């Protein structure tokens, strides 16, 4: 609460200091007696930035930090059974207190909850006051300091530019932090999962039957939970294989035709149309797969006398194949266009037809790039979520028959993690382990594709 309402006052203080600094610079400028190092506005920027930036950082740090402090201070109110209880018990106790703090009341609460809630509200008031006075004080003092610091010889522009530089560096490092965040968050939860379920059972297990511990304890789950990822791996592989079988021939031949045969006009019409396939949201493909393609595949199967599951891997794979056609075609198109014309001319000079030149000269030269494009398309297919969630079902069959219903890594992750869940159960944690596998596989494929391009690329110039 204090975070958003304090930003505006800080910005106003910054604006005032900016004005003061600039005004000082302009006055010196007008006097003309001394030579200023920087333009007047840089003095304004310097005072304004010094007044706001540290105060804003302090504000963010304090308002993120106060909840943690309160949580540890709350412990003194907990009765002993809560303190001795496991994480879930403590989470429930904390929720009870927070409900009261937010004014949500369900019946009569224990006295300690009332006491803790009123203490929390008191702390919150103190903390809001402290944060407000500290940040505004810091802003005012820093501003005065900066204002007194400026003089005609003061290098204001260099100072301002240094601040901008550091801001740019901070922004660029977000990419690093995001990657670290992804890897660490998934890794930590996975390690907790592997403490519950041995890693070899997870990797080599052939049965996937996750259950909530509650259901297990109550005996309603029917058997114990098993966490073997092979059925899902097989399902992912199967659907991706169908998708690639659809996408590679269509994508590759489209790319060859567009790059070598098509007139400029055809190309300018067809290429954007193919790109549209990549721009359609995946949820739309999922809807299409579940509603149109799956029943179609099923009825074709029925008319041929073949039993097809209503959520077959074939239907999901077909639609996913359509989705990744543009990835294959546009990457291959670029690679084919990058093959120098001199190679084609040489082939024509030896009397080959256009298709012979393509098959025997252009494609071999473009092969590393095409392989890389296909690998990237595979990685796209493995990570694709919505189509399989909506069209592939949840039955964890270890099957390589595309007419069966299978499930995939991504659809299991979505099923486990969407909606409410207890964070401590092995079932929830298993989703993080699956995500770890997903990250490792997609990044490995990506790395592999890059290496192929790097190693086998022909340098023509």
């Amino acid at each position, binding site marked *: 609460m204090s975070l958003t309402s304090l930003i505006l006052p800080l910005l106003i203080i910054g604006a005032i200091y900016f004005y003061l600094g600039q005004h000082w610079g302009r006055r010196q400028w007008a006097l003309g007696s001394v030579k200023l190092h920087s333009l007047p506005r840089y003095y304004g920027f310097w005072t304004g930035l010094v007044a706001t930036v540290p105060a804003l950082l302090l504000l963010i740090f304090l308002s993120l930090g106060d909840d943690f402090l309160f949580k540890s201070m709350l412990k003194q109110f907990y009765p002993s059974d809560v303190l001795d209880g496991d994480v879930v018990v403590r989470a429930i106790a904390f929720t009870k207190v927070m409900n009261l703090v937010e004014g949500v009341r369900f019946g009569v609460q224990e006295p300690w909850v009332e006491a803790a809630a009123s203490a929390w509200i008191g702390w919150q008031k103190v903390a809001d006051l402290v944060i407000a006075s500290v940040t505004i004080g810091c802003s005012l003092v820093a501003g005065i300091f900066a204002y007194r610091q400026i003089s005609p010889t003061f290098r204001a522009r260099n100072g301002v*530019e240094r601040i901008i*530089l550091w*801001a*740019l560096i901070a*922004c*660029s490092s*977000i*990419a*690093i932090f*995001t*990657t670290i965040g*992804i890897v660490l*968050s998934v890794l930590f939860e996975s390690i907790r999962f592997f403490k519950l379920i041995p890693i070899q059972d997870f990797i080599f297990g052939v049965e996937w039957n996750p259950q909530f511990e509650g259901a297990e304890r109550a005996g309603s789950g029917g058997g114990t939970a098993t966490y073997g990822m092979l059925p899902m791996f097989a399902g992912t592989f199967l659907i991706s294989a169908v998708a690639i079988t659809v996408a590679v021939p269509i*994508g*590759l*031949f*489209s790319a*060859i*035709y*567009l790059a070598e*045969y098509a007139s400029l006009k055809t190309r300018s019409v067809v290429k954007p*149309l*193919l790109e549209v*396939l990549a*721009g*359609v*949201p*995946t*949820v*739309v*493909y*999922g*809807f*299409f797969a*579940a*509603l*149109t393609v799956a029943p179609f595949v099923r009825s074709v199967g029925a008319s041929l006398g073949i039993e097809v599951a209503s959520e077959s891997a074939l239907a999901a794979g077909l639609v996913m194949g*359509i989705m990744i056609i543009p990835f294959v*075609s546009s990457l291959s198109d670029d690679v084919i266009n990058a093959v120098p014309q001199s190679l084609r001319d040489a082939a024509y000079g030896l009397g080959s*037809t256009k*298709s*012979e030149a*393509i098959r025997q000269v252009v494609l071999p030269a473009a092969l590393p790039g095409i392989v890389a494009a296909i690998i*990237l398309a595979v*990685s796209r297919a493995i*990570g694709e*979520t*919505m189509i399989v969630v*909506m069209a592939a079902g949840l039955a964890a069959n270890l099957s390589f028959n595309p007419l069966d219903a299978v499930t995939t890594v*991504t659809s299991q992750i*979505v099923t486990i*993690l*969407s*909606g409410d869940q207890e*964070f401590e159960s092995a079932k929830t944690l298993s989703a993080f382990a699956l*995500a770890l596998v*997903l990250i490792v596989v*997609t*990044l490995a494929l990506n790395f592999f594709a*890059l290496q192929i391009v790097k190693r086998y690329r022909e340098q023509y110039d």
Partner: protein
Amino acid sequence: MTRSTDGGLLSSQEAAERVAASLKKRGRSERRFQYLGIAAITCSILFLVLLFTGIFSKGIPGMFQHYVTLEVFLDKNRMDPQGDMSPDSLYTGDARGLVNESLMSALGNPEGRKAKRAARSILSSSSPSRLAEFAVKHPELIGQKVAVKFAVDDDIDSFMRGFISRETPESDRRINNQIIEFVDRLNQASLISYEFSDYLFSGSASRDAEIAGIKGALIGSIWTLGVCLLIAFPLGVATAVYLEEIAPKNRVTEIIEININNLAAVPSVVFGIMGLAIFIIAFGMPRSIPLVGGIVLALMTLPTIIISSRAAIRAVPPSIRDAALGVGASKMQTILHHVIPPALPGMLTGTIIGMAQALGETAPLLMIGMVAFIVDVPGGVTEPATALPVQIFMWADFAERMFIQKTSAAIIVLLAFLITMNAGAIILRKKLERRW
């Protein structure tokens, strides 16, 4: 020179004959190859056409629905017992009775409980609140008899569209013969009309197909995209400027570049998992809020924006930088005043394309709980919300026939937004981008 099979040289005449003999075959294979290419392109375009006709053939009817026009007497005392037109008073009032009475009189006042129940099931259960809303909007009409349009129940709507057949035995049908007779009677009196659905854009999530709308989801999407834009655009542009203009070619820069490429390759669902683990579990932020959704989508679209912004910066010719430096600008002044402004259209184009990507993304939002059933329209970035693609995902799961049409209609709205954004990006690029 072509060698003969025994290793000796062929005469030029013999070689020419051989080539001539093979020409026909080679010509055929040339044509075959070309046809394969045409077939591949036809295939993909056929898929595209199938996809769009499938969606539009269901979605356009999904934007319309059947209404019954009834003459309702807006009885002040019964509708508004407290007499202050406050929501409280209106909802305790007897709008239901007024609607039912006028429905019964339109049907010739059927006798018997069964017939009355059948008659009541024709109208959507939301009809009383629709009447109350009408009264609030037109206070001057209170005390008069006015014609008000009420949505019919989704089963009746399916029947009117022919999805429920009269020939089906009564026991297998969702609506009985009595209802069909009443509907026919209303139809003969031409009280039933087929019009553009006013619930589609103004209604929120509902289990009743006839009153479900995308308003809440659309506003949720706008909040989420707003957060996403505010975070992703400055971060993306700053990163691109740093990497392209300032960064020394060293180990750190290399690591940043590798990380950006990795982020572009990570499946979108993983970003959702990260959002769940960091923002919701570790930071204790609430679930289902556009703020978290926007942050997650921002991190996801960051690589797109960075890559296109770098391309835009690279397109600014070095001579401009040299000129600025030559007249005494500092490095930072050169960048801020002479490199970023001409590169801005390209950066904006990339940002719009990234936002379009974010608008269509579903999986990460499912992970952070934006899949909840939320009836209220979100009023800010910290209120529970859902997003348009997630709404489509949820509706696609509902079994009612009419939801298929509503879902397709929502998809059309989503596609319209995406097409507008992408067209905007193309126009921006054509209009503002300078060729040097």
